[in-house]
């Protein structure tokens, strides 16, 4: 496995006497997109603020590119590019002036690098306009530009698709995957949208109420929480139906219940396909119910055993 660019262990944070983060630990490798998934108020932004040194953890260790963020701030933060919450840039400056300003602060960025980044985020035409004239998508791209300027090893993006249109989200997704897989940057993305994380990330940590409740490859996790379908058959045809369904490779965890109901897990988009197969096999289908697993269901099932903290955690 490749190099660890971000390592977090035992992170804790309480604000105003309320513990927001309980013992969060994870590692992000170079060249992977790491998702940080949780509902609003789970502690995502609080964690990210600690990762970029805006707030101090009460305990725990953050190591970026081999340097402790708390003890060697300059060396550690040099490897980080980030957008925390919205991409807030100086709206009274042009895009280029913004980038030049951050370049001066990093001290290692050449003029050529600025041009390269402008091209990379596709802002060549608008770069000399004031940022206040930019659309949200352009701001987001400029935000990514400033994060990439100093060629960081770790890119931290907080809810990067907020407010983007579907085309913009898709573009961003491809760009992020390019950065991770081609340029070998470790990308850390927080989101409250399951679908987004599913499409974008290689691995994911699910957090709720300030705790990591599950870590794994996105693929495995999705399988674990795939959608359900409930099928209702007549009593005569149920045997036949189970036989047909068992032969489908995309149906799993099949459960035949006594009341003529068959529960299974499958991609709900393929229900029509399966229905056609059943009809061809002379099975009478009375009713089909699809149950899409929402993020809420996922959290409910994941947090079922864990005693949750009371109250809401505002970030």
């Amino acid at each position: 496995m490749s190099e660890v660019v971000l390592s977090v262990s035992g992170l804790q944070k309480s604000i105003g006497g309320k513990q927001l983060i309980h013992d969060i630990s994870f590692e992000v490798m170079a060249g992977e997109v790491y998702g940080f998934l949780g509902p609003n108020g789970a502690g995502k932004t609080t964690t990210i603020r600690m990762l970029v040194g805006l707030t101090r953890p009460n305990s725990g260790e953050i190591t970026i590119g081999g340097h402790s963020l708390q003890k060697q701030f300059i060396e550690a933060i040099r490897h980080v590019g980030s957008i925390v919450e919205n991409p807030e840039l100086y709206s009274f400056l042009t895009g280029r002036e913004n980038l030049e300003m951050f370049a001066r602060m990093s001290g290692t960025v050449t003029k050529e690098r600025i041009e390269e980044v402008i091209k990379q985020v596709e802002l060549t035409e608008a770069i000399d306009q004031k940022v206040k004239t930019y659309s949200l998508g352009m701001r987001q791209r400029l935000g990514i530009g400033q994060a990439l300027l100093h060629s960081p090893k770790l890119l931290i993006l907080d809810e990067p698709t907020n407010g983007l249109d579907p085309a913009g989200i898709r573009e961003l997704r491809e760009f992020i995957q390019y950065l991770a897989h081609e340029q070998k940057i470790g990308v850390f993305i927080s989101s409250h949208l399951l679908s987004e994380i599913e499409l974008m990330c290689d691995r994911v940590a699910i957090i709720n109420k300030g705790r990591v409740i599950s870590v794994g490859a996105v693929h495995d996790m999705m399988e674990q929480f795939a959608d359900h379908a409930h099928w209702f058959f007549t009593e005569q045809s149920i045997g036949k139906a189970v036989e047909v369904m068992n032969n489908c490779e995309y149906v799993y965890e099949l459960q035949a219940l006594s009341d003529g109901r068959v529960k299974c897990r499958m991609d709900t988009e393929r229900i029509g396909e399966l229905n056609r197969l059943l009809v061809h096999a002379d099975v009478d289908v009375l009713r089909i119910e699809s149950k899409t697993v929402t993020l809420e269901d996922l959290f409910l099932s994941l947090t079922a055993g864990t005693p949750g903290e009371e109250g809401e955690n505002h970030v």
Partner: protein
Amino acid sequence: MYDLVYNESLKLIKRKRFYVVLLILIVLIPLFTYAQFRSAEVARSQIGTDDWRTMLQQKIVDTQNRLASSRIPPEWRDYLETQLSLQQYYLDHNIDPSSPGAVTFARGFMDQAISLFLPMMIVILAVDLVSSEFSEGTIKLLLTRPVKRWKILTSKFITLFLFTSLTIVVSLLFSYVISGIVFGYSGWTMPVLTGFTFSADTLDTSSVFVLEQWKYILMQYGLGWFVCMVIGAISMMISVLVRSTAAGMGIMMAALVSGVILTQMAANWEQAKYLFNVNLQLTSYLAGTLPPIKGMSLPFSLSVLSIWGIISMIVAYVVFIRQDVR
């Protein structure tokens, strides 16, 4: 550090704060010039003569009449007595205190502007240097760079002090150039009295000496610069402590205005002399007017202001470096 100061200056200029200050000066100085011109004219028509000696004698008689009245409060009496001795001194030494000219106007301008007008200009420059970064969210970009927090705040202080100095220079330049159109550009070498000291609560003229006006102006604008630096430091602290520009502006304006009110009212409340806002009228020590509260002197006011400035900077640094950014 040069790069950081460059960044901060760029932001200050592009935010148009300095333009606002320049614009205010350009609009108001002609106004003051006109007001000065009018009052000189009115005085002339009332007394009916152009001769300054007659005018000064008139003033002395005026003051004596007021002193003769039994109803005036004692602190007012002290003040009038110093006025009187000063006017007498001018007359005896053949010095026209209000001889018109751009330089005299510039001197008068600083006398009037030092306690409220110029500090307000500095507040405009300083009060959102830090708070705007918070309210616009750009503080997150600023503090996630490989630069220590104290360096970022230092670059802001240096920028503020640069522009404060520039404001002082520009206001001298503007008041000289603009008023010169009306009053003429002479007066650099006119003699001015200074060196007044206050023993107990009476004006001591024993160490008074005559100074060429350009030297006097230099001293005056130096004191103005010092006041503005201290106000800048205090505004910065407010800017660090208060996240909203409007609130910061309100606090500083209230502090400055209440200083003006206190200097009129607090003659009997001696502890008030440790407040920064009653110590801003530094130029009156040069001109020889009695301080608002007993026990105040130029070294005293300078020390009080220095302590306020230094403490403000310490508070600003400690809070800025240690705070969690949310």
